[in-house]
């Protein structure tokens, strides 16, 4: 992500220190993660100390300080999904992508994350990719779903 784009985002929020979280969210949404240079630029432009930017960027789970893949996979590990075999779905996805929860693969294609409930228990086991829900997942189906992303 280039400096000009970050400046644009900061300008959109009128360089207002109280918009810090919103600026971080905008950058996270576009770039999928927050590079250190971006945090330094924000700190300088908003006149907010780096300690505060770092405090907020590490506090919320929505922010990532390490590179994330182009596609975010969320696998529900909630009770309903669990009893319907979410752990087997997770195993299969781990096998297909070669990464464990919290990790990102080397060509930045997928990031894998487990979540505790996506709120649609009737669809369990649920797999969510980039916000799109794939319900009633059987381990064999996951390969077909993952094939659609590059």
């Amino acid at each position, binding site marked *: 992500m280039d400096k000009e784009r970050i400046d644009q985002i900061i300008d959109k929020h009128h360089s207002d220190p109280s918009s810090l979280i919103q600026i971080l969210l905008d950058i996270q949404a576009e770039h999928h993660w927050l590079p250190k240079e971006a945090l330094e630029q924000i700190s300088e432009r908003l006149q907010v*100390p780096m*300690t*505060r930017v*770092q*405090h907020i960027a*590490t*506090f919320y789970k929505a922010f990532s300080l390490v590179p994330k893949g182009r596609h975010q996979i969320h696998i529900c590990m909630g009770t309903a999904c669990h009893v319907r075999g979410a752990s087997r779905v997770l195993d299969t996805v781990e096998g297909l992508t070669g990464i464990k929860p919290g990790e990102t693969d080397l060509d930045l294609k997928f990031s894998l994350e487990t979540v505790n409930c996506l709120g649609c228990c009737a669809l369990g086991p649920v797999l969510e990719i980039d916000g799109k829900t794939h319900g009633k997942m059987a381990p064999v189906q996951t390969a077909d779903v993952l094939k659609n992303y590059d």
Partner: protein
Amino acid sequence: MSEILLKIDGKEVKAREGMTVLEAAQRAGISIPTLCHHEKLEPYGACRLCIVEIDMRGWKKLVVSCLYPVAQDLVVTTKSEKINRIRKMIVELLLAHAPDAFDLQDLAREYGADRDRFEKESSFCIHCGLCVRYCAEVKKKHAVGFVNRGANREISFIPEVASKECWNCKECFPLCPTEALQAAYVLTEALMSHTRQ
């Protein structure tokens, strides 16, 4: 400034509006144990050790005295079996993080706290925030801050700021009740010199 009369441990104490119970007690020569309190800094209420019981028209409540403002006719108890029991528990929980901190060991002796009551999770930092607040409020350098959240929260120096400001200051070192701060700084120093090479 209007004067407020309150009672601390049975002693009539005069205080000014806007003072905290802790300040009023200290002025009257009544000692309340504290860890995260520093007179130059804004009250923070992190360690909870200064907990006292207040009685307002028959309503009893446990509050941290470093944050609670004085009020007319407030009755404060700073020492009782109940309060000592709570302080003992607080010290025991803090000791799980920093078992060898001298300040905590002194408190443990005073309140009969068992150093080994809880499984050790030696992070050495008890999150009093003294270093973070001192650097931000007094020195205005913001070289050290908190990162992460909940059980994983820890202090972290900003290497770029620390390498410029900290070597000649280090005023936060003696504030730390556990010496975790110094360790964090030494680590940052080591990492900085490593990247410089």
